[in-house]
């Protein structure tokens, strides 16, 4: 929130910032609640089912009931588990998931932290969640959980590299790691000024790698229900399980917002004559489309095999991402400079 950032920092200002961040936390929790509801509805419709429709009108309170059930459920920790790490893992998964949201800008004036290393901050922190997944899998002292955790590590190291390299093209075009400046660099009035068309290769690599980093279908091998029961969180119950779930959906929020910012022009309107609509509306429309897209591919694609996953990451995505970087750099060298 800019007005407070420009004043000198006092305890009073810090308290106001804290309250704004707490309000934002409630918004994110509301998003997660209805993203889960919406996901179940959308997948239901795509499979010619109705989806949740019992709790509350149209089933709108289904997720609220689920959360309440998890809250009053008995919390079992296996006797053989490493208690400290077992308790620590869900918290460690959730903290970076929420912390990365601090740098995302929503409109010209609506943002929390305006870091000039915003993108690097996002990439660095989002890697920590994988550590929590490996930790949870190891601490459970369960074979399924260990396999799930190990798969997660393998997947993360294979897809982190293409994900990070695919956005280098965007950085080249805007000359900044600051997410607000990246959006401002896409200003041109029309939608073909947004990064997704000039950076089409980077965009495709980014989307595939992002879905993989989210551990969502078709890359949900760490929790593959049909082979590993539930993967790394098989021993978790009650609210500890809820925090793994929560961090997964907070990352859906984060990735959808980041894709909007990096490739879809943030708060810019798609055409000059549409600029009378406030920027936040455009941001939310693009954001909602990405979220829907993630649910859509979950309903459409089968889960891929682990060796296919690794081969795709190293043999296709990584060379494509590197090629994109140098094509962009050569284009800038030849035509812009």
């Amino acid at each position, binding site marked *: 929130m800019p007005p407070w950032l420009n004043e000198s920092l006092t305890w009073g200002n*810090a308290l106001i910032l804290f309250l704004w961040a707490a309000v934002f936390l409630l918004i994110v929790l509301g998003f997660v609640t209805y993203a889960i509801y919406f996901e179940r509805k959308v997948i239901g419709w795509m499979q010619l089912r109705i989806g949740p429709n019992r709790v509350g009108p149209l089933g709108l309170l289904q997720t609220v009931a689920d959360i309440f059930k998890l809250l009053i459920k008995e919390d079992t920790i296996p006797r053989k588990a490493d208690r400290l790490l077992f308790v620590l893992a869900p918290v460690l998964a959730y903290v970076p998931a929420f*912390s990365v949201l601090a740098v995302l800008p929503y409109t010209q004036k609506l943002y929390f932290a*305006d*870091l000039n290393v915003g993108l690097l901050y996002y990439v660095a922190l989002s890697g920590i969640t994988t550590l929590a997944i490996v930790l949870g899998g190891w601490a459970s002292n369960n074979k399924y959980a260990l396999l799930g955790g190990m798969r997660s590590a393998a997947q993360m190291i*294979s897809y982190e590299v293409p994900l990070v390299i695919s956005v280098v093209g965007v950085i080249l075009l805007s000359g900044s790691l600051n997410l607000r400046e990246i959006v401002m660099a896409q200003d041109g009035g029309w939608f073909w000024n947004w990064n997704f068309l000039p950076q089409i290769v980077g965009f495709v690599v980014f989307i595939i790698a992002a879905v993989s980093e989210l551990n969502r279908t078709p890359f949900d091998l760490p929790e593959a229900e049909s082979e590993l029961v539930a993967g790394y969180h098989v021993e978790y119950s009650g609210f*500890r399980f809820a925090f793994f779930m929560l961090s997964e959906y907070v990352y859906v929020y984060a990735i959808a917002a980041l894709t909007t910012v990096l490739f879809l022009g943030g708060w810019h309107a798609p055409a000059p004559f549409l600029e009378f609509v406030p920027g936040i509306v455009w941001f939310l429309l693009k954001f909602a489309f990405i979220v829907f897209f993630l649910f859509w591919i979950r309903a459409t694609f089968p889960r891929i095999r682990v060796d296919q996953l690794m081969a795709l990451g190293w043999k296709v995505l990584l060379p494509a991402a590197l090629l994109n970087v140098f094509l962009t750099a050569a284009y800038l060298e030849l035509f812009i400079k």
Partner: protein
Amino acid sequence: MENYAGNYVVVVIFILLGILLPVAALTAGRLLRPSKPTDPKQTTYESGNEPVGEGQVRFNVRYYLFALMFVIFDVETVFLYPWAVAYNKLGLFVFFEMLIFAGMLLIGLLYAWKKKVLKWNSV
């Protein structure tokens, strides 16, 4: 950017809130949820069978070579980011410099590919 530290205060507030929510929720949950541990409840889950042996077994992790390659390419990204930010201010020289650097790593990737490191049943 005269008051840049303020932005990091926001980051600290977000991290604090991120820690606060799980602590508060799990503490509140402790008051609400029942706790009746029994012996069968606390055994390790293994599809309803008696668990066999240890859970933390050592097995052939097929991807330790991937991990080595990850370290190399992750370092490359560390160099790519500042290069990309400053690219428009630098000359043609840095373009070829990065091309040579990435090219050498790419040769490494091709070598690993040829050596069948990227195949599942190679080791």
